Structure formats: structure tokens, C-alpha cells
């Protein structure tokens, strides 16, 4: 069913609203802080409302398609939203709103705020653009903008470590981006058109060329999705970046790589062709290795943000595994895990940021007794850790349940061990943090520090609010799984569409 012109404007508006907000923020250097915050909050809420309405329209069956500008004589910059893109866009808008509100408190005493907010809002625009891309050229445009223009956020601290992490980030991301570019050019050459929808390739294309295109795509998106061994930038970029940006970096940006892999698997090649090619077994093996390997490495990290970064690599391995099984239930699990993971990891990074900011420690070994000083933060961390491990009835359980069903249905039963092993390892690297916070005695407080007077270093309400919202969402995402507007049902519908 085609949507009328009266609602189609929502699609470009969801991309251009944060874009305009970012441009305004760039020139907000001399504004009073309150005005900048108000403007950005309004823009962000508007974006969320637009993305939510688009999601509602798409699940109601509307065809949301808008052509913007003809970039080459053959190809338009074209936005077209399907269920997968709509869900991804709405999750991004939600997480960005939380991270923005969190930034108001977290970044208050940081430098160069207009630059930070400008690129922060722009990165939301590019992410929504990626989600709503209607063809591969549009996808490439937003994907590259998104990869390159987040560099200023990664190096925001301007310390030598941040610059080194930024260089590593940009080199990895550019190599990945170049592979994606080549794969898209090759796809265009072989299949033309390139509108995202029904699979572009069929069996008439020679197998060798299909394999070249597939591995180019997979290596390119694999860098972004932190598929081992292409994950090197993730553990460095996260600790270097400011915490609210780490939250979206882990929650949504790494997931963009897996979103790209979904597009390749479901919309470029199609599940049938890939089943014939037989490459997905290799991808599944890589993904399973990623899950376990990154989780083992996470156990040995003392820097809390670095530990969480490895956790992201491990969790994204689950998503890739879910795609690679080529099974509708596993794909449902993969899609919904992107949304669930966004808010779980967002909440964890919010907590890590509060701990770093308020207690001045970054290493796990110094966290002893933190629950006494920051009770709310510690409780949020504990609850989200359980969700991340996959404890019912929290968000992480839902996605892992579907992944498990998919593994059984596709008959590759060995991966059950990976699924459960990964969850156990998540317990091993997350729960000791909780244990230290609650059951170890705090180190004595140095006399004269602000802590000594109040005895508490709990964060102000402005920063606790987005954290609480993210935690509530992880609970809600675990509990509300049956209404038609719940991410799980949307993911199910999207997955069924791909396997029809």
C-alpha cells in the first residue's frame, strides 16, 4: 500500500531534523547553555517522534519511499523504509535522545561543546539515513558520512591516547569503507538498479564474482561490526571517547555493521542464493568465534570501558551468528538483539561514565564498595548486567531465546554451546564488577575530598534520568513482547518478509 504525500515528508524529515540541529549546534558557541540544550532536546524529541511515526506507518503496511536528488544519471539518492530500517531508525533516535540528555550533565565541564553537540547530532542524522536508505548508493553515502564524521567525537578529548585511538579508528573504518564501496560498485555493475527490496542477485551471475562481492561486503561491514579479527579499533575507541558517545558508539554504531550485513544477506543476495553459495557456514563460524574470543578477552580487562567494549564485540557476534544461520527465528533474534543491545549497552556505558566522572576511577579493581557511594548507579549496573547475560524476563533473554530457537530449527546444534558459553562468560566478566561494588569494603576516603563531607558521590538527577530510562527500557523490552508494536513482533515480521 502506498502512503499518501501527507505522511511521506516524515521520512526525509527524520534525517534532516537532526542534521539541522547539528548545523545549528555548530554555530551555538556563543549561546547560553540553556538555549542550546533546549534546542537540541527539542530536535532530538522531534526526531524520535518522526522515527516512531515512520515505524508505525511501516508496520501498518505503508510503502514509505521518497526520492531526494539524482546523483548520477542512473541513481537517485533515495529513502525507502522497510520494517528492519524503521526499527533500527527508531532505536537509534531513542538511544540518541537518552545519550543527549545524559551529555547535558556529563559534558557540562568539558571543552568545545558546540563541536561535540554538532557532530553528535549529525551522527544521528547519518544513522537514520543509513536505516532509511532505499538503495545501495544512498546507503553508501550515509554510511561513509557516518564513519568519517564521527572521528571528531572519538578524538574529542584531544589527548595523545585519544588521537592514537582516533587514528586506529579511522584507518580501520576507511579500509572497511573502501571494501564496502568496491562491493557496492561491483554489485551495481553486475546487477544494476540496486533498490533495496527483493534480492538483487540471482543464480545467473557467475559464482566466482558473487563470492568476490560477498567477501568484500562481509570484510567491509565486518570491520564496523567488530567481527574478530577485524575488531581492533573497538577496544581503543571506546575508552578514549566521552561516555555518552561511547554509549551510542557501542549501542548503535557497531550495530550499523551488522545492519549492513543484514542488508547484504537479506536484500542483496537473498537467503536462497546464499544457502546455495554455502558461505554462511564460514560466517557463522567466525561469528561464534567472535562471541567466545571477545568474551574471554573482556574478562581480562581492568579498564571498565574497555571491558564493556569487548562485551560489545561479543554481543555483536551473536547478531552476526543469528544472521548467518539463515533461519527466520535466528534472524528475528538477531534483529531484536540490535535494539535490545542498544539500550542495555547504553545503560552500562552511562553507568561507567558516572563512575568515572563521580568517583574518578576507571579500573574494575578500584570499584570496591562503589554501591555505598553511588547506590542508584550500582543498582542500574547490576540490573543491566543481568539483562546482558540473558536473565529472564529482561531484554537480553528475549533475543537469546530466539537465537536458541533458530539454532535448533536450523539444525546447527553445536552453536547452542556458543550461545550458552557466551552468556556464561558475560556473567564472568560483568558480575565481578557487581560483586565488588556491593560486597567489598570501600577504600578509605582521602580527608578533604568532597566525598568526605557528604559520603555519597551519586550523580545529579539529570544524568540519572536517562540512565533510569535506559534501564526501564531493558526491562520493558523483556516484558512487552506480544503487542504488534513491540520490537520483537516487528523483528519477526521483518524476518518473515526476508524468508518468504
Amino acid at each position, binding site marked *: 500500500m502506498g502512503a499518501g504525500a501527507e505522511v511521506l515528508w516524515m521520512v526525509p524529515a527524520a534525517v534532516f531534523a537532526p542534521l539541522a540541529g547539528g548545523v545549528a549546534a555548530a554555530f551555538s558557541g556563543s549561546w547560553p547553555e540553556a538555549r542550546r540544550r533546549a534546542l537540541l532536546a527539542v530536535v532530538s524529541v522531534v526526531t524520535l517522534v518522526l522515527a516512531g511515526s515512520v515505524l508505525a506507518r511501516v508496520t501498518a503496511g505503508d510503502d514509505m519511499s521518497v526520492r531526494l536528488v539524482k546523483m*548520477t544519471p542512473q541513481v537517485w539518492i533515495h529513502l525507502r523504509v522497510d520494517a528492519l530500517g524503521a526499527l533500527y531508525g527508531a532505536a537509534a533516535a531513542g538511544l540518541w535522545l537518552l545519550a543527549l540528555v545524559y551529555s547535558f550533565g556529563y559534558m557540562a565541564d568539558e571543552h568545545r561543546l558546540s563541536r561535540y553537540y554538532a557532530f553528535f547530532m549529525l551522527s544521528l542524522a547519518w544513522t537514520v539515513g543509513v536505516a532509511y536508505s532505499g538503495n545501495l548508493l544512498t546507503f*553508501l553515502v550515509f554510511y561513509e*558520512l557516518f564513519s*568519517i564524521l564521527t572521528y571528531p567525537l572519538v*578524538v574529542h578529548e584531544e589527548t595523545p591516547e*585519544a588521537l592514537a585511538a582516533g587514528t586506529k579508528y579511522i584507518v580501520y573504518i576507511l*579500509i572497511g569503507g573502501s571494501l564496502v*564501496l*568496491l562491493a557496492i*560498485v561491483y554489485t551495481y555493475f553486475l546487477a544494476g538498479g540496486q533498490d533495496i527490496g527483493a534480492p538483487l542477485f540471482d543464480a545467473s551471475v557467475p559464482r566466482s564474482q558473487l563470492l568476490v562481492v560477498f567477501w568484500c561486503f562481509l570484510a567491509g561491514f565486518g570491520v564496523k561490526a567488530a567481527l574478530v579479527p577485524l575488531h581492533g579499533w573497538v577496544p581503543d575507541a571506546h575508552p578514549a571517547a566521552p561516555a555518552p558517545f561511547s554509549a551510542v558508539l557501542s549501542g548503535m554504531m557497531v550495530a550499523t555493521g551488522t545492519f549492513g550485513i543484514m542488508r547484504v544477506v537479506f536484500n542483496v543476495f537473498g537467503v536462497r542464493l546464499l544457502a546455495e553459495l554455502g558461505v554462511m557456514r564460514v560466517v557463522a563460524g567466525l561469528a561464534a568465534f567472535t562471541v567466545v574470543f571477545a568474551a574471554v578477552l573482556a574478562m581480562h580487562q581492568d579498564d571498565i570501558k574497555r571491558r564493556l567494549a569487548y562485551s560489545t564485540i561479543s554481543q555483536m557476534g551473536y547478531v552476526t551468528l543469528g544472521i548467518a544461520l539463515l533461519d527466520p527465528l535466528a534472524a528475528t533474534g538477531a534483529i531484536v538483539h540490535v535494539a535490545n543491545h542498544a539500550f542495555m549497552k547504553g545503560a552500562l556505558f552511562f553507568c561507567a561514565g558516572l563512575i568515572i566522572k563521580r568517583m574518578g576511577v576507571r579500573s574494575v579493581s578500584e570499584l570496591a564498595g562503589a554501591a555505598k557511594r553511588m547506590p542508584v548507579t550500582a543498582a542500574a549496573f547490576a540490573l543491566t548486567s543481568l539483562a546482558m547475560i540473558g536473565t529472564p524476563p529482561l531484554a537480553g533473554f528475549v533475543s537469546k531465546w530466539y537465537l536458541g530457537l533458530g539454532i535448533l530449527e536450523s539444525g546447527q546444534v553445536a552453536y547452542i554451546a556458543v550461545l550458552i558459553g557466551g552468556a556464561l562468560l558475560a556473567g564472568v566478566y560483568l558480575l565481578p564488577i557487581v560483586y565488588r561494588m556491593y560486597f567489598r569494603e570501600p577504600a578509605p576516603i582521602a580527608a578533604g575530598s568532597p566525598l568526605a563531607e557528604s559520603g555519597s558521590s551519586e550523580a545529579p538527577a539529570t544524568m540519572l534520568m536517562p540512565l533510569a530510562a535506559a534501564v526501564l527500557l531493558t526491562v520493558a523490552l523483556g516484558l512487552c513482547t506480544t503487542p504488534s508494536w513491540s520490537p520483537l513482533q516487528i523483528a519477526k515480521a521483518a524476518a518473515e518478509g526476508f524468508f518468504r
Partner: protein
Amino acid sequence: MWWQWPHWLPLAVLVPLGGGVVTPAVARGSARRAWGWAAGVSAATVAVSLALVIRVARGGPFSYAFGGWQPPYGIEFRFDEVSAFAFVVAFLGALAIVFSRQYAPHALAEPRVPYYYTLLLLDIAGLIGFSVTGDLFNMYVFMEIVSLTGYALVAISGERIAEMAAFKYLVLGAVSSLLALFGIGMLYGVTGTLNIADAASRLGAAASTMPVIVAVALLVLGFMVKAALFPLHVWLPDAHAIAPSPVSAVLSGLVVKLGLVGMLRLYGVVYASRAVDLSSLNWLLTWLGAVSIVMGAFFAIFQDDIKMMLAYSTISNIGYIVMGFGLASQYALVGAAVHIFNHALIKSALFLAAGAIIYQTGYRRLSDLRGVGRGMPLTAAALSVGAVSIVGIPPTAGFLCKWYIALGAFEAKRAAFGFALVFGALFIFVYYIRMVNAFYFQEPVHADVTHVGDPPLSMLVPVWILAALCLIMGLAGKVPLTFVAPAVSRLLGPLGG
């Protein structure tokens, strides 16, 4: 309509030529009057060349016979889609002249300023003449006008190092012009005509192919020295880095393209006549293009001088275009032809922005310029837009060439060159990342750099017009791509592709 008047075509050359010659007389020693006159003349040139572009877009290529003497006997100007380069020349030349308003009196001794504008206008006239002439010998004449004014413009600051760079440029430029002249002479010997269209029809009937092969080789060699293809690039970095910044923009954006436009003309003659098979030449050019991309980027990484970096980056970009020529497929040639235009825009944006930064701060090394992003936010932002564009990040202008030439490589069944092209671009990004880091993210070395302020409007406006075009020409890529497509189809048509 106004654009249909036939005499616009000779005027496009005569206006800057005549206007340039009389500049010192009009200026009577005043830099300000010289600037006003030169800006007026270049604006008129833009208007005239715009008329020509409109005419060719509406009705296809057209000719002008001087004095009513029809070709092949009379002198012919011929305007086709490739000649639209003349409009880019006029437009960028005008922006460079506007930019020079405060820059020239600052960089040069006051009495030299009117002569500076004379040389710049003559350079523009020569470039326009080269792109519109339909006559082989006049190609040489206009090439010499461009080269001679180019040597003088590099040396004009009068510093010893500038004279050295100009001398190096002069020696290699003179050799390349001579090679091209020999080539033209041999073609004349074989065909008995100097008219390009006439030569194309007669070359196929040549009794022996050997002289034709030698003529083509000489011309290609001459043009490739002018275009600074690796390993014939040695004259370029010093000359482009040391010249005053508006001149660098003209030299790097426009003058090196002379060799490439010349190549397109030569291809037109040889492909149409099918006198010789160029596939081995094209094979060589594809390889040299790939090597040029990588080597240009490789040398640029080690430069600390910002203009030196930009100069080496030109070598990389020439590599893209030559690789597109060598692949000789529809997509690749369209991409190469469009990149001739787009690179001119992008590189001018970069050189003018760099010039504005040097003008304001007095520093030209990246290590001295740390923190300039704070001191000159608008200029540094324009430079960053240019950098993103030249690296080929979508949706900027530089991306189109990567997209099209990579497609062309697949079309020509030489996919490996698509890979070389895309990964060569990564090297290029490395040094632009260094630049961005220095501008924005590293601790300033000189405190004054962080509060110098943006340059006067006469510099800022041209810089931002160009930076905006870097974005617009990418998003509106359809316009140039459809514009040059007929010329490329005509060029490749005789090959039966």
C-alpha cells in the same frame, strides 16, 4: 537568444587576452585599479564562456571560422563538451583574481601587481584558447602562452627559491612543448593538414603507420609532462607550492589539465581514424595512473608544508584521470572527464583556503599551524570540506570520479584497477587526517595561531563558493555526467564499443 551569437567563441579568448595586455596601462601603477580591471575582464570572460556552454548543451558542438575562411583552410575554433573546460577556467580564474585583491599586494612588490594580473589573464586566455581551438598548431601556440605565463607567475614573487622552482618548471616545460611540437609536425607531415577534424579523417589513409606511432608517442610524452604524471612529475611540487596561492590554484587546478585535454583531443584524432591501435599505450597509462595515485599520496605523507602536500595530491588525482583514460571504457572516460572539472574545483578550494591561512598566520607548516581550526574556523572548515571531497567521500564531488572509474574498471574487465583506485585513495586520506588533526585536535605550538581570525571577505567568499561547489557538484553529479557523456560516446564510437 543571446547565447546564440556566433562571435562569442573568439571573444572568449580575445577578451582575457586583450584585457590582460592592457592591464598595466589601465592600472597606471595602482594595485587597486589593476584588480578592478582584471576582475571586470574575468567576469566578462565568465559570461562569454557561459554563453558557449549553454549553446553546446542545447545544440551540441559548433565551430567558428575566422574571417569566413572555412576549415580546413581557415583557422577554426571548435567548441564541444570537452571545451566546456573553458568555462571552468574562466570561473576559477575569476575567483583566483578576486582572491588576489589583498593577497597579491601582500605577496608581491607593489609595482609588479599589475603585471601579475596581466600574466594571470593571459594564462586564462591561453587555457581557454587551448580548449576551444580546432587546429593542431594553435594548440601548440596556446600551450606556449600558458606555459610562459606559468613560468613567470611561479617566479613573480622574486624570491630565490621561486626562481629556482620556475627554472625547473621552465626546462621541463620547454622540453615537453618541443616534444609536442615535433609530434604535431610529424602529424602535419603525414596528413598535410593542421586542422584536427581534417587530420582525423586523413590519418587513416596514412601510407605507413610508423611515423604516426612516433608522432603519437611524442605528443603523449609532451602532454604527460604537462600533466605531471608520475614519473614525469618532478617539476610540479616545487612550482605549485612556491607560487603565490591564487597562482597555485590556477596551476594545479587548471594548467596541468592542459595535458589531459590535449590527450582527449589526440584520442579523438587517433580513435576516429583508427590509424594505430592504442591498446598498449592505454595499458601503460592505466599502470602509470595507478602508480601515480599511490606515489603522489606516498610523497605527500612526508610533507610538512601544507602547499607541498596539496601539490603532491595533484599528482595522485592526475593518476585517477589518466587511469580513466587508459581503461578506455565509457564509464571510466566519463569519470575521468568529469574529474578534470571537479578536481579543478576541489584543488582550487584547497589552495585558496591554504593561501588564506598562510596570509593570516604567516605559517605554512602543519606543525606551526596547529590550532588554526580555532583561529580561523570558517577557512579551516572550507579546507576540511575540500579535503573530504578530494579523498572521495560520498556525496562530495570527488566521489563521482571514484564511482565511475571503478565502474569503468569492472566494465573493462580489469577489476584489479578498481581496487587500486579505491585503496590508493586511502593513502590520500592519511595525510588529510594529519592536516585535520593539526588544525583541530593537537595542542597549538604558536599561541597567536588560535586567535588570528578569518581572512577578509575577498578571500573568504571565493573559498566558500568553491567549498560549497565541492558538495553541490557531488549531489548534483547528474549534471556534469550527462553533459560529458555525448563527447565520450563520440570519442569511443569508432571503436565499436
